[in-house]
Each structure stands twice: as C-alpha cells, then as structure tokens.
C-alpha cells in the first residue's frame, strides 16, 4: 500500500503475489517502487522468485494477486507487445533466421516505422554497442559477446523507457562479463533509461546497480544501495549471500541501545551491533566480514574487540592473503588481509590475537 502512494514512481509492484500451482506462492506480497532512470537489480538464488517478477513485469506471466503499474498505469491486463518494454534474454534470443540488421529492424517494422528512419535507428543502435560492421551477419556467425551486444542493441533500438535484462551476461566468460558490465552501466547512464536487471551473481549486482533487491523465498529480504547492502546487511541471509562472511553463533547476554553483548559457544563474551535480534537469552549469529578482521597490533582499530585464534591454513592469493583460523570453536573463520608492507606469511599452528571493531560485528537473526 505504501508503494501505491509513492509519488513519481515509474515501475510499481503493489502487493503482488504469484502462484503457479495454487498451493505455494513463488512471490509473496511484493511491494516495490522504482523512480525513473534507476538501475535496479533483482538478486537472489535460483527459485527465489526474481525471474518470475521480471516475467510479470514483461507480461509473460500474470500476477495471481496485486497490481503492477508502469508510469502510473496498471498493466496487468496489457499484453506484452503493447507494453513497450525492451528485454534482453539470457540466451540472447536473437532470431537465427534473420541477419543482425533484420533482427534490429523487427521491432521497428511492427511499429510501422519507415525504411529511412529504420535504417538510421539501426545504425545508431549498432554503433552504440560497437557492432556497426556486423549488420549483415547472422547470429550464428557471431561470438557470444557479439551476440550479447546485438541483443542489447535490439532491446534499445525502439527507444523503450524501461529495459529488462534477465541474466544477460550469464553465458559469457569472466573477463568479457566484467567488460560488458561497464558497457551496460554506461549505456544506462548515457541514455537515461530505467533498467531492471536480474542476476544471481552478487558482484555483478554490486558493480552495476543503483539499488539491489535481494530475493529469497519469494520475499525481498533487503532493498538498498550496494554499499549499504554489503556493509549493513539486514539479516543473516543477506549477509550470507552478499560477499564472504564469518558467522559466530551465540546467545544474547545483554542489549543496550547500539551495543549487544553476545556469549559465544566457547563462553567468550564479544561486543556486536544488534540488527535484528530478540532480547536477552535469544539466539543470534554474529557476522563479521573477513577483510574487517586484523591481527597486526598496529592495524587493530582502537576500541576493537580482540580474541585468540589458531592459524589452520594460509593461502596466498596475489593481491591478498587468506587465513583460515579456529576462533571460538569455529573452524572456518576467515581473515583476509591486503598484501601490504609489513604483512607476513602466517604458519599453520601459530597462535595470534585478532581483532575487529564492534560496528563491524553485526548480531543477526539465527538462520
């Protein structure tokens, strides 16, 4: 309901629910409002409902309940071809029996745009994705990355205000994927279009998005800008799903405003920032990012909480070191240090003192 009142929202999901079999809900009570020009990513594991949401927005699935609005207009009953939404598919879905030019001409032809204007638009769109020379090729004659660019050009050629992308970079290798992430980001900035992007790759979501909606089990777990998502996860699932994460199970001893005292399994007491925990005596999971853990005394921040650790494994990763340690009875506590001056190789069996700032330890709900 809150979303319905939002002024200036371009895309709105208002209490949307979706069920395929009438028994289970794939999307449970989704409320989402996007301003014009935003790059929003729906992130989540497979089966979390993110693709279903995209398909409902595109018009290929009907919402079981609730309303979807585009520029203030309900579109539940509008067939997909009248929604004017550009879409990029995971397998590109370039028509194999048409050349690149014909693929791009398709959306213009069905809109009855004349030949001269059509050609100008196609040339502009292809230049935009640096594929100007490939107009007469067939999709099968292009590499994966080139097909991806053409698919992008085809989704943009008819100047849609909203573009949906369903894991468009999933089939590309790592380097190309990272390159394309920036190109898509730049296209978004230059054209001022609104983008809804679906992915299960968290680094992709963090790099490209204005805001990320983390999906799990048909519910948005957190909707926030990337930095907030990473640094202040709202619950254990988000902390777990975004980036690497150490988790120490424990019981709340005391909660006092912005500070909670947690007794760990081994009986040690640590300080943490409470996020969504119950009162005294309730179970919790303390989450600490590996790169926020330090062991060199001069690097441990003032006011930090310190604890004994035993080194189990040391992995050299080039720009960083990764140390697996036993901390408070947990065997997979990871510390990640930048390969900087003064760092050294830790030996397995070595006993060290590690520390972190209490703001970086977040007491979350137990999973």
């Amino acid at each position, binding site marked *: 309901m809150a979303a319905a009142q939002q002024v200036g929202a371009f895309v709105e999901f208002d209490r949307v629910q979706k069920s395929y079999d009438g028994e289970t809900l794939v999307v449970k009570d989704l409320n989402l409002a996007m301003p014009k020009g935003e790059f929003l990513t729906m992130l989540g594991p497979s089966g979390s409902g993110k693709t279903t949401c995209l398909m409902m927005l595109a018009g290929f699935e009907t919402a079981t309940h609730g309303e979807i609005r585009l520029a203030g207009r309900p579109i539940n009953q509008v067939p997909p*071809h*009248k929604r004017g*939404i550009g879409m990029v598919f995971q*397998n590109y*879905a370039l*028509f194999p*029996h048409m050349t690149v030019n014909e693929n791009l001409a*398709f959306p213009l032809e069905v809109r009855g745009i004349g030949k001269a204007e059509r050609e100008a638009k196609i040339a502009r769109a292809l230049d935009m994705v640096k594929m100007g020379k490939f107009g007469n090729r067939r999709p099968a004659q292009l590499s994966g990355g080139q097909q991806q660019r053409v698919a992008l050009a085809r*989704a943009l050629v*008819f100047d849609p205000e909203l573009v949906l992308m369903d894991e468009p970079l999933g089939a590309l290798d790592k380097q190309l994927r990272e390159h394309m992430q920036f190109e898509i980001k730049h296209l978004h900035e230059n054209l001022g279009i609104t983008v809804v992007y679906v992915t299960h790759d968290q680094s992709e979501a963090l790099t490209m998005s204005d805001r990320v909606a983390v999906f799990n089990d048909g519910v948005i777990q957190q909707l926030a800008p990337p930095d907030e998502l990473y640094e202040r996860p709202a619950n254990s699932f988000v902390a777990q799903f975004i980036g690497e994460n150490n988790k120490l199970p424990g019981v709340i001893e005391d909660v006092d405003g912005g500070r909670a005292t947690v007794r760990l399994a081994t009986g040690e007491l640590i300080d943490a920032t409470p996020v969504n925990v119950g009162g005294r005596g309730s179970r919790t999971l303390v989450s600490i990012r590996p790169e926020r853990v330090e062991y060199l005394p001069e690097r441990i921040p003032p006011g930090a909480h310190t604890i004994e650790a035993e080194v189990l494994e040391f992995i050299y990763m080039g720009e960083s070191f990764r140390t697996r340690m036993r901390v408070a009875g947990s065997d997979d506590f990871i510390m990640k240090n930048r390969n900087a001056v003064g760092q050294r190789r830790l030996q397995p069996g070595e006993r060290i003192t590690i520390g972190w700032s209490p703001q970086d330890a977040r007491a979350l709900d137990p999973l």
Partner: protein
Amino acid sequence: MADLASDAPFATPARESLKTADGKPLKAALARAQARSRRRALFLVLPLLVFILVTFVFPIGQMLFRSVHNDAFSRNMPNLVAWFEATEPGTEPDEAAYAALAADLKLLRENRTAGEVGTRVNYELSGSRSLFTSTARRANALEPPFREAILAENEGWADPRLWQVMRDASSAYTANFYLAAVDLMHTETGEIARVPPDRQIYVNLFLRTFALSALITVLTLILGYPIAHLLATLPLRYSNILMILVLLPFWTSLLVRTTAWIVLLQQQGVINSTLVATGLIADDQRLAMIYNQTGTIIAMTHILLPFMVLPLYSVMRPIPPSYVRAARSLGASSWKAFRSVYFPMTVPGIAAGGLLVFILAVGYYITPALVGGASGQLISNLIAYHMTDSLNWSLAAALASILLAAVLLLYWLYDRLIGIDNLKLG
C-alpha cells in the same frame, strides 16, 4: 594476406617433411595405426552390409533390369528374330518371314513355350496370346507356302500391328514397358504415339497419386502442427502421455486401423447412422465416405499423421520460449510473432515431415486397396495388380521405376531448396 605470404615459405616445407620419430612418413604411420580399428569397424557392419545387398540392392537392381529387359520372345523365336534383324523396320512380312514364323511355331510346340511368348506379345497387343497357342498347336501341319498356310489357320497373323509388336519384342532390351507406363506405344510405322483414349490409365493414375499424396501431406500438416506444438510446449510429464497417444497407432495393426475406418465410414456405419438419427441427413442420402477417394484420403491421413507429428515435434521441442517472448516484447502481436519468428524456425520440421509423408503416401498400397474403391486406387495398387494378376512384371517394374525416379527427383529438389542437412526426422 601479407602475413600469410610471409608464413608460406616456412609452412610448406614443414608440411612435406613431417615424419615420425623413426623417420617414416607420418601419413603412412597414421594409416597403419588406424587400419586395425577400421577392419574391426568393417567387421561389425558386415552383417548389415550383406543384408542390405541381398534384400535391397539386388532386388531393386533386378526390378530396374526387368523393366527394360524381357527375353520371353527373343529366347523362344530364334528364326523370326533373325529375320527381324535382317530387315528394315516397317518391312512387309514376306514369305521368308512366314517361313521363319512357321519354324518358330514348331519350336514353340516342341518346347511347350507358346503360352510364354503369347503372353509377352499379349502385353502390348491384347488377344494375341490365343493366336500363338492355337496356331502352335497345329504347327506340324503347316506346309509351304507358309504365308497362305498360316493365314488359313488364322487371319489375325496378317495384322501389321502384330508384326510391329513382334519386331519390338524380338530384342530382349526394350523401352516399350516405359512407354506403356506413360500411356505411349510404338505404331505400325515405328513412331511413338499415345494409346487410344479408352486405354490411357497410367498417366492419370500417376497424377492422381501425386495429387492425393500432396493433399494428404497438407492435411497431416494442418492436423499435426498444433499437436506437435502442444507436445513441445507441455511439461514433459504431460507431453509423454500425449506422445503415447500419438504413437498408439504404430502399435496397432494397419489392417485393424483400416478396418476401424470401414466400420466408422461405411453407408450403414457409425457416422452415417448418427447423422441420420440426429436428422441431419435423410436415410436415402447417406454419405458415401468409403470405397472412394474420400475413404482413401481420410484413412491415409490418419495413418500417416504420426510421421508428420514426430519430425515437427523434434524440431519444436528445442526451440526455447524466449524467441517468441523476445518477439512479443519487441512489439509483435502473437500472430506476427508466430509468422515471422516461430514458423520459420519450424520449417525444417515441416519439410522433413512433408517429405516423409509424401514419399510414404506415393507408394501406399494396403489402405487404398481396402478402402479406396475404384476412384481411390493409387499407382501402387496397379503395380500390385501387374505383379499378382496380369503377371506383367516388366510393366510393374517400369511403373515402380518411374515412381522411384519421381521420389528421388523430389529428394533432390528438397536438397537443392532446403538442404538435406536441415532434415530432422526425430
């Protein structure tokens, strides 16, 4: 290009001098290394190879040979054959010719082969078989002058058409069966002309066979396309059950299926009775839906439907729904998306199914024989007739060869227009 040119001097000698570690040419070593596995592979396919040779290549070769070769006359009439060889085509039969004929008739009587030769001539001139058998029976009584003697036995020997046919038959190799198969013949003067209109049956029958086959192909496409699409888009759980229904006809005897159609379609059958009972047609206006072309079309469309559905299904199944979705999101109505995106992607399946159904329909025999009546017969029914009833195997072979040639031509056209690589049969 410049790079290639500069590379060439280095590349070429390297290719020529490729040797194994102990200095043998690489190609020979490779061939030796692979020879053993090749022999084993050949050994494995040998039974099939022999089987195909014995049951397929050899009989078809025989059939093709038979369509241009028939020595029933030339083998048994040596004297007349010699006379035909010595004279020009169109020569009036003189006394020498009749003498040769009399000598041969005696031979026929001795060897009891008058019927065989008479049958051969009878193929092209009906009624001449009895001429040979009756005259041969009294051949020993023939005295010179033979012309008068033979004509006294039977006036029919004076027929110039008979002499033309005998001249044609005097050579074991002949194109006459092919001429007959397309309603043509040699006239008395040796020219090629159409047979009299009342005996022109084969060309019309070929045309009818092709037209009916084309119609049946189109009908199976119209009926099969939506089924195949449904099968391809349903979840596997349901589509497997439906697929069993499509395949069910394969597990039932062809005769049973055809008989079922007789039960349904005949004048006193289920459909007619229902129509009469509901008052849609009067009792004396029962529809004739079987023992005619309609019967052939209905029954064959049903029987050949799976051959259309299966190739279509195998082409449609791997088409991801995202293509049509992409077209829809780009602004195409569902009809436009079907016409310009989905349909073109299923063309290989349509072509494969069409080719398969058409080729099967062109040679179909049992269904038209059972439910076709007079107007629903196809060329294969006539081939069967010549094989089993008229015993004119050469004509049957000629008709079958023309059919084979037509099918091969079709196949060639398909390859030229669509490409055999695109053929997907399942």
